[in-house]
């Protein structure tokens, strides 16, 4: 399947090789084999329980929070297997940021939320932190809305603003990749639209992997799409091709809304 994709323009960031994953004795991911390219948006679509979230959480090893998880196979991140013992999860996660399904700001001020990552990685200088906060909030298209109330509690923001704050918080430690696990599922259409515009803008500087329930969202914002079903990748390719000319009957059924 990998060979069908034209990789010439963009560098490979993640090379997933024969990845299997079990929760205890239940296999959740089966023989995944595809690549994720630099400065592209890769959408992971599929019905509930198909392994989308499980997969995206392997990319920063957040899946290891679940005690019974076992994996086989490899995920090469810029050429190194990220399951390798020599890679520290802390190091990996500073390079691979994550935005969650439900906005999860800390019960702190907007400013403290944005600079949290910078602070835990040792940056103490006030001016530097302020600069980081401003740049990150600007990148997350939130600066104009919050610049006058940076010291207010983040819980005073709307859901959509909170989610953009979480994006800003992830961007503040200058990651390489941004993983988004259904980032708009808790948001209204207007807030969703703003996040989608933001994703469009961010892919110039970041590699983005986004799990989404909405095929329309995948169609609008992604370059590549992987269609997951029962832990397998049924089809992977350019989003345009998958949506206009699906090769697999099951993909066609899903994107035309016959199930899922």
């Amino acid at each position: 399947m990998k060979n069908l994709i034209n990789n010439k323009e963009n560098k490979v960031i993640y090379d997933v090789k024969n990845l299997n994953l079990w929760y205890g004795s239940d296999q959740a991911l089966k023989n995944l084999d595809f690549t994720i390219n630099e400065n592209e948006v890769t959408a992971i679509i599929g019905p509930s329980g198909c392994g989308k979230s499980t997969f995206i959480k392997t990319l920063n090893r957040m899946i290891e929070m679940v005690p019974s998880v076992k994996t086989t196979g490899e995920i090469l991140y810029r050429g190194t297997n990220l399951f390798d013992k020599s890679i520290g999860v802390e190091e990996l996660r500073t390079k691979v940021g994550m935005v969650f399904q439900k906005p999860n700001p800390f019960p702190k001020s907007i400013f403290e939320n944005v600079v949290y990552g910078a602070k835990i990685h040792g940056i103490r200088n006030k001016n530097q932190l302020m600069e980081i906060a401003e740049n990150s909030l600007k990148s997350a298209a939130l600066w104009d809305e919050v610049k006058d109330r940076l010291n207010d509690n983040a819980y005073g923001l709307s859901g959509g603003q909170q989610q953009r704050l979480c994006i800003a918080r992830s961007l503040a430690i200058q990651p390489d990749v941004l993983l988004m696990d259904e980032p708009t599922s808790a948001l209204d259409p207007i807030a969703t639209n703003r996040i989608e515009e933001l994703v469009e803008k961010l892919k110039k500087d970041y590699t983005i992997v986004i799990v989404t329930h909405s095929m329309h969202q995948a169609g609008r914002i992604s370059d590549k799409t992987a269609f997951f079903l029962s832990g397998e990748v049924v089809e992977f390719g350019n989003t345009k091709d998958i949506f206009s000319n699906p090769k697999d009957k099951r993909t066609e059924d899903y994107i035309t809304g016959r199930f899922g």
Partner: protein
Amino acid sequence: MNNRTKTRLLLDKLAHKAFLLSALFALLILGILIYRMGTQSIGWLNFEFLKNNLSIFPEKSGIYGAIIGSLRLMAVIAPVTIILGVSTAIYLEEYAHKGKLQSFINMNISNLSGVPSVIFGLLGLTVFGRMLNLGSSILAGGLTMSLLVLPIVVVSSQEAIRAVPNYLRDASYAMGASNWTVIRTVVLPSAVPGILTGTILSLSRAIGETAPLVVLGIPTLILKVPTSVMDDFTTLPIQIYYWTLDTVLTPEYANLAAATSIVLIIMLFLMNSFAIYIRNKFQKRY
């Protein structure tokens, strides 16, 4: 309205009254207690009583030494239980793998909280009093009391830590935070109010407790106010206990015991109010 509906409404009224009476029962008992202590201590509870030390003359007796003893005892218990209790709770909730060791420790902490206080007194007597040769000093009493309330602090800290939502931990882990960083920057700031509340409540249990100190052999009569943790001491509840024992020979001791009880109850009331204040003030919404 038919008869069956009437009966049902009547039953409802009766139930309402019965439950109200049950609720008032506790209030009534407290009322009697305060009334009894109040009438008995009139004329005895005054500034002199708080300021004076013990004396063989009941009229000149005071509880200054016992108040200082109780406060110093707390000064030993608080740091010991906070450090040991919170550390244990952090280990169990944030580090230990959910498995046999963790549930074994958890089970034993629950068992420990069910052990009668007099048995902790025996433990304190053996380990701190005799083996470590601390005698019946404040240190020995404080360490014994710490063991007694430690399970309460552990369990309430565990609950406070468990109440911190996982999505906050995830946010921190996803930015490359280590376990300890997550605990320090996310878990503890959110859990501290709950931990403090539990600790204050357990301290108020400790200063009201008598049995372990009796077993440790706290002296009946102390004329010297303790100045260091190695000194002998007495506490308010111990004072109440000894005065009550001797009321047959000296009836005035009943008045002294009542006056001391009022002081002790006011202290406990203040501590509990402080705990509630902390809980309300720092209660976070997520």
